C-alpha cells in the first residue's frame, strides 16, 4: 500500500531527456511552465499538447507511469473542472434550477484541467528522468546562479529528504506491524476512530525520525561537513551539445506561445 508512493521516483534510462544536464532540465521546465500559463486559446493549448507529447516520447517514459502519477490528484482535478463549469458567468448552454453550465465555464474548466495535468506531468517527468543526486546538484547550481545565499544547504536538505523517503516507509510498515501484533486496527472504524488509531503509529514514527536526524547530523559533523563553503565536487556538471539544442527547442516553444498570445 505504502509502496505505491511515487514522489521523486526515478526510472533509470538512457533517453535524450535522461542525458540532459539537470540545469538544462530545470531551466527548460521554467520556460515550459511560463509557456503553459501564457497559452489562452485552443490553438495555444494544442501547441502545448503537441510539445508535451513530443517530450514524453523523447523521454521513453511510458504514458501509464505518468497517468499513475496523476491518480492522487483526481479530486483536485474534478473540483477544478466542476467549479469552473458551474461558477463562470456567460452564455448558458445547460440549466437546471440554480445549476447552470456556461460556454465560458466549459472553456475555462477544460483549460484549467489541461494546465493542471500538464504541470504535474512535466514535473513528474523531471524527477522520473533525473536521479535525485543530479537533480539536487542542478538545483544547487541554478540557485547559486540566482545568488540565493544558502543554495547548497537547501539542495542538501532536499537530497536528505528524498533519501529518507524509503527508509521512513519501511519504518512505518515495521511499526504498523508491531502495533497490529498488539491488536491495533488501522483499517476499520469511523473517521475519528481511524484518526485516533494513527497515534500509536505517528508517535513512534516522529521519535524515530528525530533520532535518525540526530544521528545523521552527528555523522555528518564528525566527517567535518560544514555546508557549501569552498566545497568542491567529484563530478562536475558539463553542458553538452544536446543541452544547447534543448534550450533552442524550448525557447522556440516559448516564443511560439508568446506570439500566439499577443500577436494573433
Amino acid at each position, binding site marked *: 500500500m505504502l509502496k505505491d508512493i511515487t514522489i521523486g521516483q526515478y526510472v533509470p534510462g538512457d533517453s535524450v531527456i535522461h542525458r540532459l544536464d539537470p540545469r538544462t532540465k530545470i531551466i527548460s521546465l521554467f520556460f515550459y511552465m511560463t509557456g503553459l500559463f501564457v497559452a489562452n486559446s485552443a490553438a495555444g493549448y494544442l501547441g502545448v499538447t503537441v510539445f508535451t507529447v513530443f517530450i514524453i516520447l523523447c523521454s521513453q517514459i511510458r504514458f501509464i507511469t505518468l497517468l499513475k502519477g496523476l491518480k492522487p490528484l483526481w479530486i483536485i482535478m474534478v473540483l477544478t473542472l466542476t467549479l469552473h463549469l458551474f461558477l463562470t458567468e456567460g452564455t448558458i448552454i445547460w440549466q437546471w434550477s440554480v445549476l447552470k453550465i456556461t460556454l465560458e465555464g466549459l472553456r475555462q474548466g477544460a483549460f484549467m484541467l489541461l494546465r493542471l495535468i500538464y504541470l504535474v506531468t512535466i514535473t513528474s517527468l523531471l524527477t522520473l528522468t533525473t536521479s535525485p543526486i543530479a537533480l539536487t546538484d542542478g538545483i544547487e547550481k541554478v540557485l547559486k546562479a540566482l545568488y540565493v545565499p544558502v543554495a547548497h544547504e537547501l539542495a542538501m536538505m532536499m537530497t536528505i529528504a528524498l533519501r529518507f523517503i524509503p527508509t521512513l516507509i519501511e519504518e512505518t510498515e515495521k511499526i504498523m506491524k508491531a502495533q*497490529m501484533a498488539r*491488536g491495533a486496527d488501522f483499517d476499520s472504524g469511523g473517521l475519528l476512530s481511524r484518526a485516533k488509531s494513527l497515534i*500509536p503509529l505517528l508517535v513512534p514514527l516522529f521519535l*524515530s525520525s528525530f533520532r535518525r536526524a540526530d544521528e545523521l547530523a552527528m555523522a555528518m559533523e564528525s566527517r567535518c561537513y560544514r555546508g557549501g563553503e569552498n566545497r568542491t565536487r567529484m563530478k562536475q556538471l558539463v553542458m553538452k551539445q544536446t543541452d544547447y539544442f534543448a534550450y533552442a527547442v524550448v525557447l522556440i516553444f516559448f516564443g511560439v506561445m508568446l506570439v500566439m498570445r499577443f500577436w494573433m
Partner: protein
Amino acid sequence: MSLLTERVSFTYQPNSPYETNVLKDINLEVKEGEFVGLIGHTGSGKSTLIQHFNGLLKPSAGKVFVDSQDITQKGTKLKAIRQKVGMVFQYPEHQLFEETVFKDIAFGPQNMGMAPLLVVERVKNAMRLVDLDYAKYRDLSPFTLSGGEKRRTAIAGVLAMNPKYLILDEPTAGLDPRGREEILDHIVKIHREEGLTVVLVSHNMDDVARLVERLVVINQGEIVYDKPTRQVFAEHEGLQKIGLDIPTVTRLMLRLQEKGWKVRSDILTIEEAQAEIMKVVREGRADA
C-alpha cells in the same frame, strides 16, 4: 496444540523486477511447551517466517495453523490469533508511544476489548514477569527509562495480552551484556514458570546454545537443520558453510581437540566446558 506451517512459501513483490522467493516450502511445527530457537543469517527469511504465525504476512502458497485452526483461511479472526501468538519485534522499544508505562502496556489488552479491571490485572502481571515494579514505573513516561527498561516495557506490552505462544525476534539486539542477561533470564522464567511456548529468533549462538532445547536453522528460505540444539552444533562444518558460527565454548573445545586434548566437543555452556576440562586434566594426571 501447536504452531504449524505446511509447505509455506513466500514471494516478495511477485511479478515485479524485485521478485524474490524469501521462503521455500517451509514445514515447521512448534509444539506447545517447547522452547525453540530459530537461527539464520541476515536475509535468510527468519523474520519473514515468524510473521506468518500471527497472520501479519500471508503465505504465497501453503497453510499456517495455530492450534489446528487454519489462519490462512478467509474470514479468520486475526485479532484472536494475535492475542494467542504474542510477537515481540526487533527493537520493540521503538513501538512505545503512550504517556505512561501503564497505558502503553495496557494498549494490547484494551485492543482485545478487555474490561478495565482485568486490564489492570494483566498489566500488573506482565510487569511482574519482566521485573518492573508496578508502583514505581506505572506512571513514568516510557521515554525516560533506560534502554533495558524500555525493552522490558515493550515486552510486557506483548505479555499483557496473555499469549500462549511468544515469538521474540532478536530480543537482545543492541543491549549491553547486563541488559542481555536480564532479558534472557526473564524469557527463561516466562517459559518455565508461566509455561509459555517460546520461539527465539537470534543470531547469537551463545544465547541459543544456553537456552533452547531445539534449534531450527534456516538458510536462503529453507530449513537446513531442525533438531536438538546439541546435535545442530555438532554439525559445525555445515553451519560454517552457510556462514553461521558455533558457540564460543564449543569452538574452544574444538580448538583443544586440535591441540591433542581428549575433550568432548558437544559442549554448550561454560559450566559444561569447565567440568569437561577438569575431568580431562584429572585423567591426564592419573595417566602420568
